[in-house]
Each structure stands twice: as structure tokens, then as C-alpha cells.
């Protein structure tokens, strides 16, 4: 026991590093488990639109017909298919929140009509 105490006193920095690395690993593991558990959470559906997304990306993530998304965003299906939503919002003088609200309303209407 005496040897262990002397050893711990002499190596307190390394022991501190060990505790810190274990605590960090544990924290990441908890976040990992929590993210995995909530992977299919309804909150992760119809996510907020981001400036890097494209109209095709919206079609894929919101699971909407391509023609509907292009119509809502007032885009040409051929010429504007690769446009970034950030640029689109900028051109229209809208915020990303406005654009998200527009697409969500269209999605609600479409899904309501489908049911």
C-alpha cells in the first residue's frame, strides 16, 4: 500500500491523464448511445433546411415528389436542380427559417391530401 501511495504521488500527472481520458471516453460513449437510441426519433424528421442542401436533397429527406419541391421553391426542374438553398434564400431575400416553414407547410398539405 505504501509503495502504491508513493508511486501515485510520483506519477500524479500521468494518473490524472488516465482519469481524464477515461472520463472523456465515457462522455463520448454516453453521447453515442443517446444518439443511437434517438436515431429514429420523430424530431429528426423534416429537419431544418441548411444552406448547403439542394432541392434534390429536400426531395430525399422530406420524402416528397420532386415536382412538388421544385414548384414550392419556384425552381426550374432542369436549370436549377443543383442550386444551393443558401443561395436560393439569398436571391429571394428570405431566411433559412422562412424557407423551412415554406417546405414544411407544403409537406403537411401534401401528406394531408394523401391520407
Amino acid at each position, binding site marked *: 500500500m505504501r*509503495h502504491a501511495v*508513493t*508511486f501515485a504521488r*510520483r*506519477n500524479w500527472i*500521468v*494518473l490524472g*491523464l*488516465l482519469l481524464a*481520458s*477515461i472520463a*472523456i*471516453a465515457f*462522455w*463520448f*460513449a454516453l*453521447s*453515442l448511445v443517446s*444518439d*443511437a437510441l434517438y*436515431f429514429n426519433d420523430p424530431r*429528426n424528421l423534416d*429537419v431544418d433546411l*441548411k*444552406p*448547403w442542401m*439542394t432541392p*434534390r*436533397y429536400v*426531395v*430525399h*429527406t422530406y*420524402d416528397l415528389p420532386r415536382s412538388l419541391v421544385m414548384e414550392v421553391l419556384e425552381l426550374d426542374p432542369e436549370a436549377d*436542380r*443543383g*442550386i*444551393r438553398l*443558401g443561395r436560393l434564400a439569398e436571391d429571394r431575400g428570405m431566411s433559412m427559417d422562412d424557407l423551412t416553414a415554406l417546405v414544411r407547410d407544403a409537406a403537411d398539405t401534401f401528406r394531408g391530401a394523401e391520407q
Partner: protein
Amino acid sequence: MMDTVLALVPDYGVMLVFGVVFLACLAVPLPASVLVLTAGGFAATGDLPLATVFATALVAYILGDQLAFGLARRIGPAVLVYFERSDSTAHLLEQSKTLLQRRGSLAVFISHTILSPTCPYISYLSGAGGLNWRRFTLAALPGALVWTAVYTGLGYTFAAQLEQVATILSNFSGVVLAGAASVVVVLLLRRRWHAHMLAVAQTPV
């Protein structure tokens, strides 16, 4: 930073993927994994061709990696001579070189896949430490292939949940890196403990 880089994908496509992956292999701090994941997502939506995304990321990885190894092989020995002037670092470097020769292939493969944030440093160390080019390449190539396939594949499969997958992968990397750091510290402590007990045994009562 992340959103800025991702916003460049629709504009610059696979050229951006090539540039970022290539530079990340040289230890330039760029989000290569998230970018390849996102490019895989854009492949699923039809904005980018999947085969081109995969091939571009793989070629960029291999070229950047080989450049890191080649640069370290050319410049590394001169840098190591500088550090070998001190007795303590010379001993440490000698031990590192021995370890590299014994476990080099495994270290290269792991650093190119599960511990990918350490990839450029292991490539630099391998080049500077004199690891045989053939041995390095035989471990680095499958590593690059696995890494590219996993990130492109995950992006393609989970295109609708890209941000969630990116967060999960980032947390997974955190667990692996912090876990690896813990193992290294435990090994160091074990060595010190043996040295400590040896010193105690040799001390006259």
C-alpha cells in the same frame, strides 16, 4: 466552418472532395470524413455520381497519403538527427523505430481506418522512421479502401439522416481516440510501476 465547407459541395462537387481529402492526408485540419459522408449523401439524391465520389475520395486519399509518406522519408531523417542529439529523446526515438518495425503494418492499417484522425501523423512517422514503402503501402491501401467505402456508403445509405450519422461517427471517433489514449497511458503506468518496484527491491533495508 463545417457548413461553409458543405455548402461548397453542390458548387464544386468531386473536385472539392479531392482537394479536402488530399490536404487532410497531409494533416491540414479539414473535415474530410464529414465531407465524404455528405458527398455520399449527395450521390443518393442524384446530385453527384456515386462511383465518381468513391473513386475521387479513394484516389485523393492514396495520393495524399503517399505524399505524406514520401515527404517524411525525404525530410524526416534530417529532422530525427536533430532530436537524436539529446540522450532522452534518442532513446525514445529508438524505441519508437523498433515498435514501428515490429507493429508498423497494424498501426498503419488502424490509423487509416478506425483511428483515421491519426492517419497523417502515422504516415509521417512511418516515412521518417524508415518503415519499408512496400509494407506501408500494403497496409495503407486496404485501409484507404475501407475508410472510403464506409464513409461513402454510410452517406449514401443514410442520406436523409446525414447530420445524425455525422454526430454518431464523431462520438464514435471520440470513444476510440480517448480509449486508445487510456490504453497508452495504462501501458506507460505499467512500465513505470515495474521500474518503481524494481527500484524498491534494490533499495537496501
